């Protein structure tokens, strides 16, 4: 099983990286871009085949380390290993 975790700054948190990227895109003519949030993407390889158990474990990982709940939101998807 693989977990694909995305961590982003909360909307209430100022994101100067995102603002700078947005200005760059707008400058290049992509004027339809009204907001950019820059976050982190993590791929975790798990030795766990059960989706429910994996989900609960990844949730704990996000809460304890991968995201700082004061300033960041997270979401993740689980991806089963390809059939042999």
């Amino acid at each position: 099983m693989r977990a694909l975790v995305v961590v982003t700054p909360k909307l209430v948190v100022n994101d100067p990286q995102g603002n700078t990227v947005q200005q760059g895109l707008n400058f290049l003519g992509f004027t339809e871009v009204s907001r950019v949030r820059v976050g982190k993407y993590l791929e975790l390889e798990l030795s766990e085949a059960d989706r429910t158990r994996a989900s609960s474990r990844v949730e704990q990982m996000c809460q304890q380390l991968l995201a700082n709940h004061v300033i960041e939101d997270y979401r993740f998807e689980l991806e089963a290993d390809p059939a042999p």
Partner: protein
Amino acid sequence: MKFGVVVFPGTWSDRDFGWVIDRVLGQELRYLWHKDRDLHGVDCVVLPGGFAYGDYLRCGAIARFSPVMESVRDFADHGGLVLGSCNGFQVLCESGLLPGALLRNREGRFVCQWSHLVCERNDLVFTGLMTVGKPLRIPISHGQGNYFADPATLSRLEQGGQVVFRYSDAEGRVSRGANPNGSVHGIAGLVNAGGNVLGLMPHPERCAEAGLGGTDGLLLFRSLIEAGLGVLTA
């Protein structure tokens, strides 16, 4: 007074703190390696600036799992004095010893400059020799010193008098223009509810000798030593 200066891989201000504690002030100094659980009977633990564990994932996020931090947490929980500056402040926030978090600076740039701070209370062991409202001149050097806390936490901090230092101009006026990194309410340093754990972004260890351009940092060290001596002789 015996100070323990914590050294993580990537810490950079440990020797500066050590110099001030040992050479400038003649106090007892012990470096505490991050793998060492023994605090060697120190009276005050210092978490210096730098980039502990490369600041991987987030500033201070990995440092909080080091063996020494388990002991520091226990020490703080029992009223031990802990001072965190710059990266040390970030480590204290990630550890939950202080509330809130430190974000990337408002302008997105690393700032390395002199700053002014006003001290809001001098009834703490860290600030006894300071004058409330009189600005201190202390350098800052950070990319992520923009203090953030949610409104409920902020109001608790303000009502509880936990905000100890705010960025100001040279006359001690707090304003957006005097705020170098966008910190909410201009917060430069705060203390826990017990008053024994202080975190601040500025670097008192870099302004403790006249040759370095200023000595206002000494007020913090001398306050600690004076309070420490009072406790030790009481």
